[in-house]
């Protein structure tokens, strides 16, 4: 567990440092995600027990953190609800626009993807 936490923090740190160095607009944790993914794919070639042990440790710790992903959004959610007055008289209109556009985007994107996948699987 501790070693896995080290690995995850380390990759985030690496991501934050690279973001700063190259002045990228992509968030540090997203860069860390990509780097960790590359590292995992690269490590596939090495099948020693030490590597496997660390990998399994990272896998189970990550699953544990991710099972509480929703919880991690509570603080920022509270922050936003407390600052809704910032939208002033636009609040209602903004809520309606966000609602309609978000629902339609989810539906359209998923619909398109399912249809294309079906076409490909038929062949």
């Amino acid at each position, binding site marked *: 567990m501790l070693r896995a936490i080290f690995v*995850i923090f380390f990759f*985030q740190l690496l*991501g934050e440092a690279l973001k700063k160095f190259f002045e990228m*607009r*992509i*968030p540090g*944790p*997203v860069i*860390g*995600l*990509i780097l*960790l993914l590359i590292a*995992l*794919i690269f490590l596939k070639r090495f099948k020693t027990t030490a590597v496997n042990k660390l990998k399994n440790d*990272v*896998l189970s710790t*990550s*699953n544990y*953190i*991710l*099972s509480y*992903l*929703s*919880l*991690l*959004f*509570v*603080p920022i*959610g*509270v*922050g*936003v609800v*407390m*600052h809704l007055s*910032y*939208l002033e008289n*636009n609040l209602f*209109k*903004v809520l*309606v*626009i*966000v609602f*309609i*556009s*978000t*629902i*339609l*985007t*989810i*539906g*359209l*994107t*998923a*619909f*398109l*993807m*399912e249809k*294309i*996948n*079906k076409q490909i699987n038929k062949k």
Partner: protein
Amino acid sequence: MIQKDKLYSIWVYLQAEPLFWLTLTIGSYLVGDYLYKKSKLFPLVNPVAISILIISYERYFEGAKFIHFMLGPATVALAIPIYKQFKLIQKEALSISVSLVTGSLFAIISTFALCEIFKIDDQVLFSMLPRSATAPIAMGIADLIGGIPSLTAIITILTGIMGASFGTFALDFLKLKDMSARGFGLGLASHGLGTARAMSRNETAGVFAALALGLNGIATSILVPLLFKLLNIF
């Protein structure tokens, strides 16, 4: 009276410490999660929304910083499920690219069109355009095109809450069964919150949501400035 003063002083003491807010956050989340499971996973009984309703208190954020901090490592941890499903992602590369470009464009253009219909001020409109990208990326884009980043942060999180609460209704209405497609739609339109929702239901859906979150962050940061330039020409 003395008793009441004493209680008040305990409250003043406790609310200055993170421990109280951390306990409250986890407690509210567990209540939300319990209700969500009791309601047989009804999407509107969202644990996040319930926790927000229970907590809503101005001085909360300072105390809950640790939970907020874990968002970064959790994002990095998303590499693991993506790694596990890498073969399926490669297999669906074509549908991923087509849905990414179409979905990303649709999110931006429909927001623009609705803002025109509702006669929203330009500054608020510019703050709204990148709202389907994850918050830090959306704020950067808004800054670039003349929006207000803090307004973008609020609108982006609202987008996430809307997507996580109502998105599955749209998917069920369209009778979509493909878990990768359902997840991809949720992640593309409503970033982290949509991903968390997808992840809580199905691992494949969660993976494709995380993938869509990352890809749409990049797509939006290319498309919004591009469309913005086109708009200025006309």
